[in-house]
């Protein structure tokens, strides 16, 4: 019944089937929306945050999705600026994922602040010294860029494409996309970095504080680099999931492997930098403030050295190496594992840089503070996931997201999902 909207030649499941799928996810979405409204109407007392945990699950979610959304800018950078043309076959999807991640990040921020109606003061009364201001500006600008990058893809919807105006518009935009990609890359560099800066500049919090270059603490560069390194792994992971769900090959292996290879090297380089940073912090920065390395990893039920091990080794070194070596990289199963570990690794890093910072006692007579999110926090954090799934489903169904789909599909006839 919606066949007119489906790209020509693309096989899609029946509309009812699609609708049911959407409805199921939609239910979850609504649950999230309900929680969101609670937080807006009744206030943040709906959460389990407190004066020790001013930053909690939401800020982590923000940092995490922006990190894994980094695939968009990095892939764009590679394609348009370094002219790695194979990536055109995945760039659309990377952009969509980026769009989802960034729109979600903004939404979560809007829920997280105590006076949402004053949120725009961050622009109106901006304090240029604050990392958060930098984040807000770059975030919203980059979101605009992503939207622009997304539009042409939308316009390629057969129905819209019929309209010559849109047809031309999208085509012309394709032409100038390189400029946007460049801008996007530039903005991303700063907001990814400033997100790192958010924790790094807290010189009252020895666990988070890092020295650095000029006004930028090392975490600034680490965050940017990690986003570039880990972002694509998430893009690939989602692609793989989509392929699994639709039971179709959507992107050629060579493209995936290429991106995976680049990621692999990036991750490895990043993790080396991260290790150096950690060692320097542990032997110089923290002791100067009177803290031993173990002070941050003992006397509490959750945060032990295992966390650090998990982040650096399991979430960094392992996926890095798996993706560097051809044979492991090109083994689908191992590659998948690498992707999952990588995403886990970067998310854990963000968690530590937000939650553990809050947990560590600084005054000698203070205690470790532990925190468990309330269901409202969890629901509002799942909300973007549901929203993302729905948007991907819609895009996949109605937009020519994967240029190689037809070609790959030509061979094997199969029933397509959602």
């Amino acid at each position, binding site marked *: 019944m919606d066949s007119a909207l489906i*790209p*020509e*030649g693309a096989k899609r499941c029946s509309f009812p089937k699609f609708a049911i799928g959407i409805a199921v996810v939609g239910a979850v979405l609504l649950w999230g929306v309900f929680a969101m409204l609670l937080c807006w109407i009744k206030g943040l007392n709906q959460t389990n945050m407190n004066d020790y945990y001013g930053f909690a699950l939401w800020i982590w979610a923000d940092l995490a999705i922006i990190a894994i959304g980094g695939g968009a800018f990095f892939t764009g950078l590679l394609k348009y600026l370094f002219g790695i043309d194979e990536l*055109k076959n995945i760039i659309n999807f990377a952009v969509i994922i980026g769009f989802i991640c960034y729109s979600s990040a903004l939404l979560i921020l809007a829920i997280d602040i105590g006076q949402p109606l004053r949120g725009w003061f961050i622009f109106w009364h901006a304090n240029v010294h604050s990392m958060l201001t930098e984040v807000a500006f770059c975030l919203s600008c980059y979101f605009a860029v992503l939207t622009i990058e997304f539009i042409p893809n939308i316009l*390629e919807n*057969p129905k819209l*494409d019929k309209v*010559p*105006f849109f*047809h*031309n518009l999208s*085509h012309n935009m*394709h032409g100038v996309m390189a400029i946007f990609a460049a801008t996007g890359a530039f903005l991303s560099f700063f907001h990814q970095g400033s997100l790192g800066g958010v924790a790094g500049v807290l010189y009252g919090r020895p666990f988070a504080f890092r020295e650095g270059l000029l006004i930028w603490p090392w975490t600034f560069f680490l965050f940017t680099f990690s986003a570039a390194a880990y972002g694509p792994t998430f893009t690939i992971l989602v692609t793989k999931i989509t392929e699994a769900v639709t039971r179709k090959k959507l992107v050629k292996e060579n493209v995936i492997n290429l991106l995976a290879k680049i990621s692999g090297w990036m991750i490895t380089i990043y993790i080396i930098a991260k290790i150096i940073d950690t060692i320097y912090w542990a032997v110089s920065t923290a002791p100067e403030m009177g803290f031993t390395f173990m002070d941050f990893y003992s006397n509490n039920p959750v945060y032990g050295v295992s966390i650090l091990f998990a982040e650096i080794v399991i979430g960094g070194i392992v996926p890095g190496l798996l993706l560097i070596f051809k044979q492991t990289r090109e083994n689908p199963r191992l590659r998948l594992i690498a992707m999952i570990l990588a995403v886990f690794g970067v998310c854990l890093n963000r968690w530590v840089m937000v939650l553990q910072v809050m947990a560590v006692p600084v005054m000698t007579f203070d205690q470790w503070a532990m925190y468990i999110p309330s269901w409202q926090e969890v629901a509002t954090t799942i909300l973007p996931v549901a929203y993302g799934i729905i948007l991907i489903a819609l895009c996949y169904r109605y937009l*020519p997201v994967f*240029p190689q789909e*037809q*070609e790959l599909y030509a061979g094997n006839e199969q029933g397509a999902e959602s």
Partner: protein
Amino acid sequence: MSELDEKTENGSVEATGECGTEEKKAKDNSGIGLGVIFFLVAFGVVFLSGWLLFPKLLYSEKEQPFNFNHDLHVYEMGSCDACHYVREDGSFSGLPDLYSCTQCHYEEPMGTTEDEKIFCEEYVAKGKEVPWLVYSKQPDNVFFSHAAHTEGAGMDCKTCHGHIGESKELPVYEENRLTGYSRDIWGDNIWGIKKNSWDRMKMDDCAECHEKETGSKGSCFQCHK
């Protein structure tokens, strides 16, 4: 599928582009003109309504309980600070309360004006404070020290309050429907353009003067609580 490929192959795209413009050219002659007209009309309507209609919508006119003749009172009492004075502890008395007024006005009017009659009957007799609408009322978080300006800097009331002291009639009180504050804070000019120092009472106006006189805007706590 063919279509999909076309997209990315420049040649064919050019082609489509061409023919697209071809078709359009036909309509253009009429289209352009009409477009321009629509543009002008829309622009005109929005622009004018912004200037003329908007203020009417934004502000509601409120009546003062009764008219107050500043000119007369200044003449009788000698100066502003006869009624609006800085107390010995440095705080500002603000509007005189009923008690201060009754130092002169008893239940029997002194003069013959209708307004004084209202005052004596409705307020003095009933011992009710007059619910004046204050033109210079600022939000609660604003701390303003009259002592600092009149005593410390020796400024004249006029600098901020203008010529209210010479008025025989109270100006109409225009209340901002959104904020609930008087129009005098933003100033009569809807763009907020001011000719005199007393035309506006926004933070920027304070800052401007402080910048000029003290070399800095000052810290938040200087004017906020």
